[in-house]
């Protein structure tokens, strides 16, 4: 994306939402959607731009969540500082996992599986370690004060998560335009060629992992402040790893708005399916799954990519989707 204007516009429009919509149902929906978008934005840096598909972004989400919660509860540290520490911890875990995985030369499915395994190891450790509250989990005290980073109003939570999403949008924009971003996409397209051109692929991927980890960890930190409770399944469970990769790919991996669009679409789909099917347990998720498959089938390069694809379709009769078939 060449210009910053669309980002500024999107942020401005989203900022205005609570001024126009007062329904807490809608605000809560948007808060959760933006939180998932944020987790997806983290994934997108590494997976979308760097081509390194992680199945275990729960590593970062969970680390951010636990660090934020534990620092407050066990050590009495201010929530804002704990939030920041959670993000830093996410980046630090990114260094460790990235260093191990990339130095060993893991790519493709192997990288995906090693992240999955790390998430699982952390989940099991968190479910037995005393510091995380083990099986009981960690409960953050309800304390609706600005200093405790808890707000009476859903709108303030909304602006907080929107601010985080906005920062992540700007970071993504900066990455995309930087030399680092060019190296990163070069590694994604052809790692061996990039190496031949003198790109330090391991360092580049490691850098992406750190940024990615920090952003997804921020989503975890936010989760704790919003729901005030975390246990090993919430923190390191497969659900968030799946959400973090689902939303950018649906929206458009390797695009600035992909995760945001994907999260809003996926979450809206879930609600829509619920409306259509009424109160039959499971049926809404069946509809959701079918529509999900249909969306993937219709927009192989993500929803953001669909626009470009449609343009191409009008230009020539061959769709972009068919070219890659077979």
């Amino acid at each position, binding site marked *: 994306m060449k210009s910053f204007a669309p980002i500024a516009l999107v942020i401005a429009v989203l900022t205005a939402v609570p001024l126009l919509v007062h329904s807490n149902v809608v605000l809560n929906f948007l808060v959760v959607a933006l939180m998932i978008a944020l987790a997806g934005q983290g994934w997108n840096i590494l997976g979308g731009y760097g081509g390194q598909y992680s199945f275990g972004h729960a590593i970062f989400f969970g680390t951010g969540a636990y660090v934020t919660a534990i620092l407050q509860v066990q050590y009495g540290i201010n929530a804002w500082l704990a939030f920041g520490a959670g993000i830093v911890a996410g980046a630090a875990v990114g260094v460790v996992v990235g260093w191990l995985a990339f130095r060993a030369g893991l790519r493709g499915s192997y990288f995906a599986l090693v992240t999955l395994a790390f998430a699982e190891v952390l989940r099991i450790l968190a479910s037995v370690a005393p510091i995380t509250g083990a099986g009981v989990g960690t409960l953050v005290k309800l304390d609706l004060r600005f200093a405790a980073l808890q707000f009476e109003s859903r709108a303030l939570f909304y602006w907080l998560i929107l601010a985080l999403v906005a920062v992540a949008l700007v970071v993504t924009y900066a990455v995309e335009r930087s030399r680092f971003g060019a190296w990163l996409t070069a590694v994604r397209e052809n790692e061996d060629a990039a190496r031949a051109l003198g790109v330090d692929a391991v360092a580049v991927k490691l850098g992406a992992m750190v940024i990615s980890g920090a952003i997804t960890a921020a989503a975890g930190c936010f989760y704790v402040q919003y729901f005030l409770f975390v246990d090993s399944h919430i923190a390191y469970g497969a659900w968030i790893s799946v959400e973090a990769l689902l939303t950018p790919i649906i929206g458009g991996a390797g695009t600035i708005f992909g995760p945001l669009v994907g999260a809003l679409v996926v979450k809206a789909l879930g609600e829509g399916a619920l409306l259509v099917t009424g109160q039959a*347990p499971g049926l809404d998720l069946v509809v959701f799954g079918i529509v999900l498959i249909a969306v993937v*089938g219709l927009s192989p390069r993500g929803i953001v990519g669909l626009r470009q694809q449609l343009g191409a379709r009008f230009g020539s009769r061959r769709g972009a989707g068919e070219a890659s078939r*077979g």
Partner: protein
Amino acid sequence: MLSPVILIPALLNGLLTGAVYALVALGLTLIYGVLHIINFAHGALLTAAMFAAYFAFKVLGIDPYLSVFIIAPLFFAVGYALQRFVIGLASHGEDRNMLLVTLGLAVVIENALLFGFRGDTRTIDVPYAFQTIDLGFTYLAVPRLVGFVAVFVVALILWLIMSLTDIGRAIRAVAKEKLGAQLSGIDVAHVYAVTFGLGTACVAVAACLLMPTYYVNPGAGNAFVLIAFTIVVLGGMGSVPGAVLGGLMIGVVESLSSLFLGDSLGQVGIFLIFIAVLLVRPQGLFGANA
């Protein structure tokens, strides 16, 4: 407590448990080896097959050891159709889209089962469920021994298909060099679908062998998926003998680490081995060159 009195039964038990894991992993490794996708719907398909075995017993009165001869071909057809008409079409041949489509399938299957049959845990009561062979120092449950034998039978059948039949040769060709196979006139879409069908049939066999001693509910299959991934990696992605050996090995590791570390922490042992193998020898312990 770590006398041989408990160590040897624990080892035997690990082998028996590992055999079932290997069966689940066989399907996964086959699909991975050819299509190069990680099939997220594997656990859901296992659950679906377990429900099929459950209803075959409850409604039709067919023992799971007999119904396997109906359910496995049925699930071959299901797998074939899913790959041919859903996964292949919706993913446009792109790996990341296959990932999402199998993920979507998992959601659909699991919740269709929930919608149809509620979340109840179901078990069947076959006469041989509690039959055991007395070895003097321990008892071996008959259904688990059957599972142990079955994994070798299934692996042998797969090996025969792969080495002796035309479709087997085509599958191997596609796995090795997709473009070349395509150029030499192999219908890749058909080969993919057959592979997915075979993988799904393996899962169906595993389901029928599990039902006499296990339970089924709409999430039951998921318990076996992560462990199956581990085995696939350990045995080398795409390797049939690797999956069998890997399965047995993971079974033993699980049993022993549960003995030494306890069951909660014991699971960490499996994943640490998994990570170590990936980092040090990503082609797997029994895999050919990467």
